[in-house]
């Protein structure tokens, strides 16, 4: 198949809240059966985009269709085809896990037998069988998250929207949830998720859009994005007392022929090079000439961090390469 089936099409989408522009001129497509990620820092507009797609927020500009149905004019059809896992733990403290799922069964118009079969299946999937009849007030954060996910899957949707599915979870729970998400994909479900974890975007998503300040900076598979940078990375660490030499070192390295880009980071320099085996010796030479004592050199394939910085001008966790220069 040349062109994978498009299940979500977003065209020039915009949303403003009074004077605040949450997203602007967003366009992307999601293909059937993939895990599509929106990666961006806090306030980038990820949740806003998701809310528009799940029809609870009307867009201010542009259009979006889900499985061919417009999210504004055919909202009801869209709602019956999708599942949603919100960013907040949107649970009712006074209901048990099972009661949550029963409620949703009613809201999705499933029959009692259908609902019960789904509930049994989902409780097993997220390992909540033993806790199903406890009031949610007594659940841990991770258990609430699992219940959230089970709720999103109850209608047996074609597309699931997950807003920061692993936010605030410990490493084990995070891995487990990645595992569920992959299993969903194996069952032919398309997943649209947001995250502000680079590793998550890298390991889990088939394709991702980097979103910052309300607009998309770049879209592609993690591999495409990384190779798109066109080089490998050298991370130089410099001794702390020599930090003032960094700008000179940067300029010296930038002048080298095989170097594509140099940025200062808090511990030294990130150097993007074309042929690491040749440029490595050249870089060390420059450092020696400028009398900088290097603490270490690490060579790696470009990481998603590098992609993020290259396209947004700052790191995902805040700060810009320029900040570090001061």
């Amino acid at each position: 198949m040349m062109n994978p089936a498009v299940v979500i099409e977003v065209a020039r989408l915009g949303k403003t809240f009074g004077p605040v522009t949450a997203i602007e001129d967003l366009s992307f497509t999601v293909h059937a059966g993939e895990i599509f990620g929106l990666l961006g820092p806090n306030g980038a507009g990820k949740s806003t985009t998701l809310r528009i797609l799940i029809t609870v927020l009307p867009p201010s500009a542009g259009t979006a269709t889900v499985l061919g149905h417009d999210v504004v004019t055919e909202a009801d059809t869209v709602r019956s085809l999708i599942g949603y896992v919100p960013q907040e733990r949107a649970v009712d403290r006074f209901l048990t896990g099972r009661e949550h799922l029963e409620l949703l069964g009613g809201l999705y118009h499933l029959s009692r037998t259908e609902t019960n079969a789904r509930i049994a299946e989902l409780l097993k999937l997220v390992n909540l069988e033993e806790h199903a009849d406890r009031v949610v007030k007594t659940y841990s954060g991770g258990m609430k998250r699992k219940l959230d996910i089970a709720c999103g899957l109850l209608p047996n949707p074609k597309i699931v929207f997950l807003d920061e599915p692993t936010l605030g979870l410990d490493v084990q729970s995070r891995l487990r949830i990645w595992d569920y998400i992959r299993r969903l994909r194996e069952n032919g479900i398309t997943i649209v998720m947001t995250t502000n974890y680079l590793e998550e975007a890298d390991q889990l998503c088939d394709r991702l859009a980097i979103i910052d300040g309300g607009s998309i900076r770049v879209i592609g598979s993690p591999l495409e994005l990384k190779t798109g940078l066109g080089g490998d990375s050298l991370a130089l660490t410099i001794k702390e007392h020599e930090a003032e030499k960094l700008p000179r070192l940067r300029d010296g390295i930038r002048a080298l022929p095989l170097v594509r880009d140099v940025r200062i980071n808090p511990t030294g320099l990130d150097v993007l090079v074309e042929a690491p085996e040749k440029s490595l010796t050249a870089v060390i030479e420059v450092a020696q000439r400028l009398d900088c004592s290097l603490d270490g050199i690490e060579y790696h394939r470009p990481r998603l961090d590098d992609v993020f910085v290259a396209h947004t001008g700052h790191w995902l966790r805040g700060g810009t390469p320029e900040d570090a220069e001061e």
Partner: protein
Amino acid sequence: MMQMTFQHYRQEVLALTMRWVRRLSREKFSMLFTLVQPMLFWLIFFGSLFQHAANIQILQAPNYMSFLAGGVVVMTVLNNGLAGGVDLLFDKENGFLERMMSTPIHRSSVILSRYLFVMTITGMQILVILSIAFVFGVRLETGLPGIAVILAIGMLFGVGLTAISMGIAFSVKSHGDFFSLLGFLSLPMIFLSSALVPLSAMPGWMQVVAMVNPMTWVIDAVRPLIITGWEAAIPQVALAFVILAIFDAVCLYGGAKAFRRAIG
């Protein structure tokens, strides 16, 4: 197709109403309070305390207790109605409402479920209030049919009040705002009405305010059902139905507008 849609609607409303019932059964404290409304204490203490102070002539009732019973019934409707939106406010704040709105339900079923629940509780409380009044010697002049009419008036008044409450819940930024607005609304509605004293015993300006307060008209319809009898009650009840129809229409319009603005 039509029938299918209706079945869906019924299923949604039922599932949502069930949620409110389950919640109430979990909150033991609030359940107790719902059953033994503070209003009852009012009825007992106020009723016997002011028994002698109140001038039976002005009240035109056998005793203050029987005068007060109608007011207490309507105040219960007022309190429950105005507080009816608060759970939706919490749902809005913690994202549960958004989750419900992402499902293929008719938007109104959330509202209807809330109304059904609040009004069922209110109806039960009215019955408890009237039974306690009975124990204290208040005999309904219009008997059992009178109770049915009182319940009907209460439900009708409750529609508008719940709509106001939900409208506020969907409009405010925080629940602090909600509760201050609620207090701001409910106290004058009680004191500037015929709930505690008859209009004739009020100063002129107060009478004017009380006249435009729907509370007054509702109470003036309920009270004769308790203390005078059908003949005096029927015109008052008819008038109350007309006024409530207008009141409900206005409140529902405003509530629906706030809801649509918040939900889209």
